Every structure is written in C-alpha cells, then in structure tokens.
C-alpha cells in the first residue's frame, strides 16, 4: 500500500497541480504577450472564471454520476438547448399571460421538468432495452436536437426579460448568480455521492454491476434516476445561462457533451465506471475554462486553441496512465 500512497496523492492532486501550472504560465506569459494592463490573476477575473465555468460545470456534475455509474450521456447538449427553448418560449405562452413576472419561476420549473423528463426517457430506454448508454444517447443526441429544430424551425427562440436578466447578473457576496448555482450544485452532488445510499450504490454499480445486482440493488431504476439527475442539471444549466442571455439558437449546446466529458475525464473519473470524484470534476471544469481564458489572454488564435486543448487532453491521459504503472514486472497485456 505504501508505494501507492504517493501516486494516489499525485493522482488526486494532479488536476489542482495542473490548474496551478496554468495560472503561473498565463500570469507570466500574459506579462509579455497580453495587451491588457490587467494581471491575469486579478480577483475580478477569477470571479468571472467561476461564473463562466457554470454552464459546462453544472452539467459535468451530472456527467460524473453517470460515468461513475459506468454509463455516458452524449445527449446533454441537445437537452440543454431544448430546455432553453422551453424556458424562453413558455414565458410568452398565452396561458401564462396574466402572471406578469411571476411567469419566471413557472417557466423555470417547466424547463427543469422537461429536462428531467428527457433524461428519464434516456434512462428508461437504457433500463428497459438493455442497449448501451453510449448508443442510446448518441441516438437521442440527434433525436432531441431534431425536436429543438421542429419546435421553432431554424429560428432562434427569444424572450428577453429584463427582470430575469437583472436577477441573473446579481452578485451576492461578490459571486455571480451563476457561480452560486455552480457551487450549490457541486455541494449537493458531492453530498449525494459521498453521503447517501444512492451515491454509494452508484459507485458499486459502476464498479461491479453483477455484484450490485446480486446484492439486490435495483440497477435499472437507479440508472434511470441518474439520467434524470443529469437531465435536470442540463436543464438547470440552460436555465442559469439563458436567464441571462434571453435567446437560444437551435444549434446551441452543440459539442457541449464533448467539453463536459473532457472536464470529467480531466478530473480523473474512470471511463469504465466505479471511480470518480466530484471535487476533481470541479477542478477539471476550472482547468478547461482557465485554459480557454488564458489562451485568449495571451492572444492565441483559434487554431492554437484547438491544437493545445486536444493535445493536453491526450497528455493528461498519458500522465494518468504513467502514474498508474506498477513497474517493470507488470503483466504485459
């Protein structure tokens, strides 16, 4: 066990070390390359970092549960867009006309309910048909996106409500509304995963599904609940973001699933399930946003950003494997 301790520490801490490295690099490089007079590690800039991490971050928390469970959800980007459409469109529905600004919570709840329902549909299909979650959600990624387009053609769906925007732009104790949502979601999901029976069962199912079945855990409904959670969180992410921006293009949220999965994997969650930590996922989300922000700060252009992000993902995977090597005598398979 002893030789493992250091590598375990390195592994757990790796993402934070990476974040520190990014901060140092961009601060130093920013001094030479940035036209801005402001330092990279400015307090306001760091506060923005949290806020800007929210859309991906909120979904990533759900993805951590799904991946710990041994599944994957590729449809989150489409769910995100669909819920945004519901959120903004429902504010103008005639039945809510008399509500005034009271329509806001109603639309929120509606959007969250729709997100949960779409997640539940994914979960139900995975449960009842036994088709692999990758395929099920690859399909619904297309299908849900199709629904988004069918809803309003190719037009953006818009409803700018300034009350809502003002709320979304609020800063409480210096933190933006979106940041609060991110922090609360992180805390709640951490609690769920570490303190509740449901969370512990999620690890057990991802780790050894047969064992979980034998122990009488109802794997099907359990997974469906998790898909509902990620559906809810994708909707919440949409609610938080579109409350502030008020208009959604039908192709919004495309590729979000890839960013979310990247963040979760950077945070060290095993793709095969059974292991993963919410706090590390949080680190993974920050690391990605920091990378984007930092590359923009030092004036890197689009092609460099793509290249760097792709290579870093592979490099992290490689490092993770090196840390897990057991030494020369390991079995070569």
């Amino acid at each position: 066990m002893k030789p493992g301790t250091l590598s375990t520490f390195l592994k757990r801490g790796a993402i934070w070390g990476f974040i520190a490295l990014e901060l140092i690099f961009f601060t130093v490089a920013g001094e030479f390359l940035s036209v801005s007079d402001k330092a990279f590690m400015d307090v306001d800039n760091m506060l923005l970092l949290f806020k800007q991490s929210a859309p991906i971050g909120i979904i990533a928390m759900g993805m951590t549960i799904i991946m710990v469970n041994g599944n994957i959800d590729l449809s989150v980007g489409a769910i995100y867009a669909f819920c945004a459409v519901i959120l903004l469109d429902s504010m103008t529905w005639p039945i809510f006309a008399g509500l005034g600004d009271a329509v806001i919570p109603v639309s929120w709840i509606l959007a969250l309910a729709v997100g949960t329902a779409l997640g539940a549909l994914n979960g139900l299909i995975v449960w009842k048909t036994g088709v692999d979650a990758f395929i099920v959600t690859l399909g619904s990624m297309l299908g849900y996106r199709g629904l988004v387009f069918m809803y309003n053609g190719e037009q953006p769906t818009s409803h700018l409500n300034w009350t809502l925007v003002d709320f979304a732009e609020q800063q409480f104790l210096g933190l933006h509304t979106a940041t609060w949502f991110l922090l609360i979601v992180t805390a709640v999901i951490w609690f769920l995963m570490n303190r509740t029976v449901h969370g512990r069962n999620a690890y057990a199912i991802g780790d050894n599904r047969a064992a979980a079945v034998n122990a009488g855990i109802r794997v099907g409904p359990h997974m469906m609940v998790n898909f509902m959670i990620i559906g809810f969180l994708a909707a919440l992410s949409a609610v938080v973001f579109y409350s502030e921006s008020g208009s959604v293009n039908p192709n919004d949220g495309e590729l979000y699933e890839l960013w979310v999965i990247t963040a979760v994997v950077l945070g060290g969650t095993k793709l095969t399930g059974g292991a993963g930590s919410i706090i590390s996922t949080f680190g993974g989300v920050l690391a990605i946003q920091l990378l984007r922000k930092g590359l923009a700060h030092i004036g890197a252009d689009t092609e460099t950003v793509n290249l760097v992000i792709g290579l870093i993902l592979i490099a992290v995977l490689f490092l993770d494997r090196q840390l897990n090597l057991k030494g020369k005598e390991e079995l070569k398979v």
Partner: protein
Amino acid sequence: MTEQTPVLRLENIVKTFPGVRALDGVSFTVLPGEVHALMGENGAGKSTLMNVLGGIYQPDEGQIIVSEQPAVMTSPLEAKARGIMFIHQELSLAEELSVAENVYLGELPKKRFGLVDWDTLYARTDAILERLKVGFDARTRVGDLSIANQQMVEIARALTVDAKAVIFDEPTASLTDAEKVVLFEVIADLQRDGVGIIYISHRMEEIFKITDRISVLRDGSYRGTLHTRDTDEEAVTQLMIGRKLDLSRSESTHELGDVALEVRGLSCGHLFEDVSFHVRRGEVLGFYGLVGAGRTEIAETLFGLRDPSAGTILLDGQEIRIHSPVDAIERGISLVPEDRKGQGLVLGMNCRDNMTLPQVSDLTAGPFVSDGAEVAIFDQYRDKLDIRTPGWRQLVGNLSGGNQQKIVIGKWLSMHPNVLIVDEPTRGIDVGSKSEIHNLIRELAAQGYAVIVISSEMPEVLRVSDRIVAMYSGRVMRTFTSDDVTEDNLIQAISGLGDGAAA
C-alpha cells in the same frame, strides 16, 4: 434430525429455457444446523437451482418453502429478506468501495433522507470482521486486499443478517489452508446457531470433512441424498457421473528424455525470486503452492508476459530471452492460462477459430485463411481430445467448462510445443472432465512433451506430476520426486516450514 422443521425446502422445482429442461423436478431439504453439500458436474443444474433460489429466475413449477412458509423469490433482496444468503464463487465485490460498504452492499444502514449511517455501518462490520479473525478493518478499500482477504469479505456478507440458510458456492477456491480453517470455524459457528448451510464444491476432501449430507444433481434432475458418514468418494462420484472413475495415479512407464527447459536464478521483482528448476521431455513437473506464491507469475515470465529482473532461461541448453508471447510461441513454449474465459478463449468466436488462433497466419492459401487447413486441425484435435461440440461453428461460450478447457489445450497442442505449461488445468471443471484432463496430461508426457502443471489442488499435483516444486512466497522451497513426496511434507513446504527453507 427428521423431527426438526427444515429451514429450507425445495419441492419439485422445474425450470425450462427455450428448448432445455435445466431443472427437472428437483427437491431437497436443508435442516437447521446441518451442512448440506450440493454436488454435480458442471451443467448439472446447480447454478440454475441457486439462481431460482436467489430470485434471479422464476421456477416454472414447484415451490420454495422457507421455514414451512411458501415463498416466491422475486429478487435477490427478497431472498435476503427471507434469510437466504449467498456467497458467490466469482468475487462480487466493488473494489473502489470500503470493506464495510461491500459487506452491506444493497442494504447500507440509512438515516433520514437516504443518508448513510456510517457509524452503525462501521461498527457492525468491525464486529463481523472480528468473528472472522481477519487482519483488516471496515474502512479498508477492498481493492487493496489480497484475493484471499477479498474472499473473506464475501464471506462476511453472510453474517450480516440472522440468516436461516447460507449458500457457499466454491468458497475455498482462493483461500489458503489457514484461511480455510477460519472459514470452517465460521461454518461450524453458523451450524451451532441453527443455520442451514448449502455447500457447493468440487473438492471431495472438503465435502467429506465438513458436510452432513450430500445431494447430487445430474442433467438437471435430482439423483438422491446421501449421509456423508455412510458414503465415500466413489459412491458420490458414481452418482454424479453415472459411472465409475479411475482415480489411481497412472505411473509413468516411459523413458524420460533430455532436459527441455531449465531456469536458473530467475527473479521478477518481488513476485518471485531466485527460482531454479528444470523439466525433461516426457516429464510432468508440478508446481504446488498457495495462491500468490508466484507460480503463475513464473509461467507468465516463461511465456514472455513479464520481464524477468534476473536469471536465465535455457531451452534445449541454449540461453534464450523471451520478450513476448510471440517469442515464446516461436521457441515452442505454450501456456494454457489459469483464467480460461478471461485469458484462454475468445468466447464470442467459434471453436475452430479459437483453436487455430495462434497459427492463423500460417494457415493460408494465398492471402486468405485456408478453410480446409483449419477444419482439418480442428477435426484432428476434436477427435484426439474427445471434445464434445455440435460442430466447429459452435461459439466457444456455449460449451461446458471441460470442453472449453480442451479447446485451449488443443489450441496449444496443435502448435507442437517443446514445453507445455498448464496453469490450473481443472479449475471449475467437474469431476468427470477432471480425470479426463489428468489422463490427457499423463498421455502427453508419455508422447514426449515436457509438461509443467501448476495447481492449487494437492490431489491433482500428486496425481499427475513426476516431480513437484513446492513454492512459498515467491521462492522455491523444495523439489520433490514422486517417491519422497507425502501430503505432510508438501504442506509443510508450501507453508514456509519444512527443510527446504534455505533453497
């Protein structure tokens, strides 16, 4: 005993799968405080019966009666709730979770709002671990435990509830002798508490040591129950396979050839150190030791799957280096691995393709694989090894364990190796096929192959080997010849006692 109320009664259970009558009217009774062995060849219906009992399958006919109450087992949880506990043969643990979470898997103690009650969980688990006299606590991560200790975690599960009946399915497969003793004490404890125990094992010596009665299944039907006291191995075996078995050791009557393989001072990290031995053509060299003694790792090193940190390997007197299985195969070393399903076979492939896999590149006509050559090889070894399969197109996953093992052996025999290494040749294989495979190994030696057999079962090593290397904790303790080996000195050697400590 007949006056007691049975804890568990199975009445006329029938279970059919499309086209197969897997269980055909099975009935038997488990009394409180008895250890009841359930025996049968693989495919006789034991697992199906247990799955019916555990609520994974619903029986088509018949009844399960727990404490004289008819029960419908709808799920594993239902079975558990009625006091029927299972200890599974294949480890069913979540490695990333703690011991406590594994022991109480599926029914973690809850507080309000679905929160885990950690204090209760750890306290209860520690109490159980205390009974099992293990050297780890409830908070240990299961992945950090040895295989044997993981098995103990599995066993700890049986003690979480006031069980009426506990089913042990091959519990000793990976336990050391010392751990077996603890297990048998636990079983005795349960017996004293009036728990009925179903004990499933292929190991006769255990059956005769701890059970009270033996029920036998064959081909899905119930063949009778014997009182252990009043019977012997032969009678049980006959009931199981419907014929007599030749259990005697076939003495080698053939001449030994030259030394085929010699190993000098071979080490691989801490897995094994300074190992030396040799094997001649026509000879079976047995490796005996506990799980984790380094036997399998030696085989893997000889097969190029691990890099040795020191020592030399000589094949026919020539020093060689083996970097990969490809190297090993080229030099005529073959390995029948211990994990048949995980390492030996591609279960989704048909019998022929599995058998010809190592040489498929050589079986070509032009750029393509030659169908005829492949089928010829398959037919030859199917006949030679008496592999029972409807045809070569059958997927290997659908065969019984014994036939699967013969496919793996056939795969390597068809490569005409100089040295054949067989790791746990009969793990999970029923008695009938077991003796066939033992005879096969003897025959191979007689034909001039140099054979190395690794086994954890003493009767097996004693039966097939000409010489036996005893290992303990990565070192060779002593090498026995068939004349000087006894059960006692062999056990001493593999426990790190004995006189070979200096080796």
